C-alpha cells in the first residue's frame, strides 16, 4: 500500500526541480545566497522519492511504476520507472544534490548566482524527465531541453568570448547528433504507423512497450541503401546511436566536451557525472532490445566505444589543464560504457547491467574528481598543472578524496574478492566481457582497445595526482583548504566512490536485468538476439586467471609509470614533451581536431561555399529586390490618385467590384 502511494508522487521528481527553476529564476535575487536553498530542497525531495521508489522496486522488480496519459492522436506522455530508470533517477538526483550543496560555497562570489541555480535546477529537471519518459518522443523533448541547459550553463560566463564560443560549439555539435536522433524517431514513427495500420485509439504508438513489440516486423523491413540491403531496425538504431554519440561525446562528436570546461567547474561536474553525457548511454540502454535485434548495430557501438576510450586516453596524458584531463577521461569512460553496451552482442542483457553499473560508479568518482578540481581552483585560482604542485600539504581533504577518486577511476581492486574501488568492479566487468567477446568471435580488437585504454587511464590520472599534490609548488600561490560545505560533499562522494561498487556488485546487475522483463515490457532478449544474428554465450566465470588480473596489472603499471616520471622525476620530460616531438605535438594539439573541424571543415569548406553562394546570390537578389522596389514606387505613385478621400467614390468602387465579381463568378460557372 505504501508503494502505491509513492507512485502517486513519481511525477514530482522532475516537477519539483522545474518549479525550483521558476522560483529561483524570478525571486532568487531577493533570497540569501541566490536562492540556492530552493533547488537544493527540491532536488533533495526528488532524491527521496526516487530512492523510495527504487527501494520498492528492489523488493519487487516486477511491478514497475507506469503511468500514461493521452497527449494527442497516438502519442502519450507518461512516467516509466523500471529498474534502469530507478537507479538513474536516484543517481542523478543524488549527485546533483551534492553538487548543488557544493556550489553554494563555490559560486558564493559570483553575482549571477540566481541564474546559475535556476539553470542547474532546470538542467536536473530536464535530465530527470528524460530518464523517466515512457515514450521516445517525450525522451527527445527532454533531451533537447538538456541540450539547451548545457548551452546556457557552459556559456554561463558569457562575457568571456571563449565561454560563448564553447557554448555554441557544444550546442552545435550535439545538434548534429540530435538531428540524427530525430530522423531515427521519424523513420520509426512512419514504420510503426504502417505496421499498426494507421491511427488506432487506445494504443500509444511511441511508448517503449509498443515499440518493442514491433521489433520483429521492423527488423523484417528492408531498405536499399547504395546497393546494400539494410534492415530498417539497423537504420533506426544507428540513428539513435548517432544521437547518443553527440550527447555522450563519442568520437567523432566528442569535440565539445573538453571545451565545455569554460563553464563553472560545478557545471562541468554536472555535465560529466550526472545530467548530460550519461543521456546517450541511457538512450542506448533504454532501447537495448532494438539494438540487439538489429544486425551490426551493436558492433558499431562496441567498436566506436572502444576506439573512443583509447583515443580520448591518448589525449588525456598530455593535457596540462586540470579540467581538460578530466574531460578527456570522461570521454574515455563513456567509451567504456558504450563498449559495454556493444558487447551485448555476446553477453546479452548483462551488457546493460555492466554498462549502467559503470555509469553510476563513474558518476560518483567523476563528480568527485571535478569537485576536487573545483576546490583546487577555488583555493588557488589556477588550473594549469604546471603551476601547481605540493598541494597535498595545503589541502589534505581535497588531496585524499581526489586520490580515492583516482584509484576508483584507474580501477584498483583485488579480483575474485569484493575488495576494491567502485571503478574496479564495473570496468573489470566490461574488460572481461570484451575478453569473452574476443574469445567467442575471435575478434580481439575491443579487448585490446579496452586494455590499452585502462593503461592510459591509470597514467593520466596519476600524472594529474602527482603533478598537483606532490613535489614543491611551481609558482607562488596561497592555497587554503576549502570550507566544510565543500569538503562534506567531497567526503560523501569519496565514500561512494570507494565502496559503492563492492557493496552492490552482484545485486545491481541482477536488478538491472529485470528492466526488460516486468509488468510493463516483457521481451525475450534471447530470441531478439537471434533476429539480429547475435549469438549469446553463457555468463563469464571461466576466464584464465591472467585475464582477471590483467586490468589491475595495467593499472599498477600506469601508476608506476606516472610515479617514476612525475614523482621521482627520473626521466627528463623536456626532450619528449616538447613541440618538436611530432607525436607529442599531435596529441597536444588533440589530433588537430580543432584545425580539421573548425578551420578546415567549418571555415574552409562550409564557410567558403556559403561565401561564394552569397556573392552570387547577392547580385541576383539585389537586382530582383531593387527592380521590385522601383516598380512598386512607380506604380503606387499612380495608384495613390485613386484614393480621393471622398466617401462616395469608395462606395461606388465597392459596388462596382461586387457587381463585377458576381458577373465573373456567374460566367465561370456557366463555362464550367
Amino acid at each position: 500500500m505504501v508503494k502505491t502511494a509513492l507512485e502517486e508522487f513519481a511525477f514530482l521528481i522532475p516537477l519539483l526541480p522545474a518549479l525550483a527553476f521558476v522560483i529561483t529564476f524570478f525571486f532568487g535575487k531577493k533570497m540569501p545566497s541566490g536562492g540556492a536553498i530552493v533547488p537544493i530542497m527540491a532536488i533533495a525531495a526528488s532524491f527521496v522519492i526516487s530512492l523510495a521508489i527504487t527501494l520498492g522496486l528492489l523488493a519487487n522488480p516486477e511491478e514497475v511504476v507506469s503511468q500514461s496519459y493521452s497527449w494527442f492522436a497516438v502519442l502519450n506522455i507518461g512516467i516509466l520507472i523500471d529498474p534502469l530508470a530507478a537507479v538513474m533517477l536516484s543517481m542523478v538526483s543524488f549527485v546533483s544534490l551534492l553538487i548543488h550543496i557544493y556550489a553554494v560555497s563555490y559560486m558564493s562570489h559570483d553575482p549571477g548566482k540566481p541564474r546559475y541555480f535556476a539553470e542547474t535546477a532546470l538542467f536536473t529537471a530536464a535530465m530527470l524527465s528524460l530518464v523517466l519518459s515512457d515514450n521516445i518522443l517525450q525522451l527527445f523533448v527532454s533531451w533537447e531541453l538538456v541540450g539547451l541547459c548545457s548551452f546556457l550553463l557552459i556559456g554561463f560566463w558569457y562575457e568571456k568570448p571563449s565561454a560563448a564560443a564553447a557554448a555554441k560549439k557544444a550546442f552545435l555539435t550535439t545538434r548534429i547528433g540530435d538531428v540524427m536522433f530525430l530522423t531515427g524517431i521519424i523513420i520509426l514513427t512512419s514504420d510503426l504507423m504502417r505496421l499498426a495500420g494507421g491511427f488506432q485509439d487506445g494504443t500509444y504508438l511511441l511508448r517503449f512497450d509498443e515499440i518493442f513489440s514491433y521489433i520483429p516486423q521492423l527488423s523484417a523491413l528492408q531498405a536499399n541503401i547504395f546497393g546494400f540491403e539494410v534492415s530498417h531496425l539497423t537504420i533506426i538504431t544507428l540513428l539513435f546511436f548517432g544521437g547518443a554519440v553527440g550527447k555522450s561525446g563519442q568520437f567523432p562528436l566528442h569535440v565539445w566536451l573538453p571545451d565545455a570546461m569554460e563553464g563553472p567547474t560545478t557545471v562541468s561536474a554536472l555535465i560529466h557525472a550526472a545530467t548530460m553525457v550519461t543521456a546517450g548511454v541511457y538512450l542506448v540502454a533504454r532501447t537495448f532490445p532494438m539494438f540487439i535485434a538489429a544486425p551490426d548495430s551493436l558492433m558499431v557501438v562496441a567498436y566506436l566505444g572502444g576506439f573512443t576510450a583509447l583515443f580520448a586516453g591518448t589525449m588525456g596524458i598530455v593535457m596540462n589543464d586540470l579540467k581538460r584531463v578530466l574531460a578527456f577521461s570522461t570521454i574515455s569512460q563513456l567509451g567504456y560504457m558504450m563498449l559495454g553496451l556493444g558487447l551485448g552482442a555476446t553477453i546479452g542483457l548483462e551488457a546493460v547491467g555492466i554498462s549502467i553499473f559503470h555509469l553510476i560508479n563513474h558518476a560518483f568518482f567523476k563528480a568527485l574528481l571535478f569537485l576536487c578540481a573545483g576546490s583546487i581552483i577555488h583555493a588557488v585560482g589556477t588550473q594549469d598543472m604546471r603551476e601547481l604542485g605540493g598541494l597535498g600539504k595545503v589541502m589534505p581533504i581535497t588531496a585524499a578524496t581526489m586520490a580515492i577518486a583516482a584509484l576508483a577511476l584507474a580501477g584498483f581492486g583485488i579480483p575474485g574478492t569484493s575488495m576494491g574501488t567502485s571503478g574496479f568492479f564495473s570496468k573489470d566487468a566490461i574488460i572481461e566481457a570484451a575478453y569473452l567477446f574476443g574469445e567467442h568471435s575471435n575478434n580481439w580488437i575491443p579487448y585490446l582497445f579496452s586494455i590499452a585504454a585502462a593503461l592510459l587511464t591509470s597514467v593520466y590520472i596519476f600524472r594529474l595526482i602527482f603533478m598537483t599534490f606532490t613535489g614543491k609548488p611551481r609558482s607562488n600561490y596561497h592555497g587554503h583548504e576549502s570550507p566544510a560545505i565543500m569538503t562534506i560533499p567531497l567526503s560523501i562522494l569519496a565514500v561512494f566512490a570507494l565502496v559503492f561498487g563492492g557493496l552492490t556488485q552482484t545485486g545491481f546487475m541482477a536488478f538491472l536485468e529485470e528492466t526488460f522483463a516486468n509488468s510493463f515490457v516483457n521481451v525475450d532478449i534471447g530470441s531478439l538476439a537471434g533476429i539480429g544474428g547475435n549469438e549469446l554465450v553463457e555468463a563469464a566465470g571461466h576466464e584464465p586467471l591472467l585475464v582477471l588480473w590483467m586490468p589491475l596489472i595495467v593499472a599498477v603499471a600506469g601508476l608506476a609509470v606516472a610515479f617514476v616520471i612525475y614523482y621521482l622525476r627520473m626521466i627528463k620530460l623536456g626532450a619528449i614533451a616538447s613541440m618538436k616531438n611530432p607525436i607529442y605535438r599531435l596529441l597536444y594539439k588533440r589530433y588537430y581536431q580543432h584545425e580539421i573541424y573548425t578551420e578546415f571543415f567549418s571555415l574552409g569548406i562550409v564557410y567558403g561555399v556559403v561565401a561564394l553562394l552569397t556573392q552570387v546570390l547577392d547580385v541576383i537578389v539585389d537586382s530582383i529586390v531593387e527592380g521590385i522596389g522601383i516598380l512598386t514606387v512607380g506604380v503606387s505613385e499612380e495608384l495613390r490618385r485613386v484614393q480621393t478621400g471622398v466617401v462616395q467614390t469608395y462606395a461606388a468602387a465597392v459596388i462596382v467590384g461586387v457587381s463585377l465579381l458576381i458577373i465573373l463568378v456567374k460566367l465561370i460557372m456557366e463555362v464550367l
Partner: protein
Amino acid sequence: MIPLSFYLGLSALLFSIGLYGVMTHKNGIRIIMCIELMLNSANLNLVAFSSYTNTLDGQVFAMFSIALAAAEAAVGFAIFMAIYRMHDKINLDELNILRW
C-alpha cells in the same frame, strides 16, 4: 398572386436609387437619408422572404434591423453635427482629409 421575384426586383430598385443618391449627393444629411433607403430595401427583402417561406423569423429580424437603423441614424447625425461644428460644412466631397 405576385411572385417573390417582383418584391426582390422592387427592393433592388430601391437599393439602386439609394445608391445613386449616395454617389451623387454631397450633403451629408441627404447621404444618410439615402443610406436609410438602402437599409429599408434590405428590410423589404427580409419581410418578403419571411412571408414566402411561411416563417416569422425574417419579420422579427426586420424589426431588429429597423431599431438598429434608428441607432445608426442617431449616431450618424451626431457625427455630422460634430463635423459641422469643427469645419462649418457637411459637404462630404470637401471633407477629404483621408486623401493621399
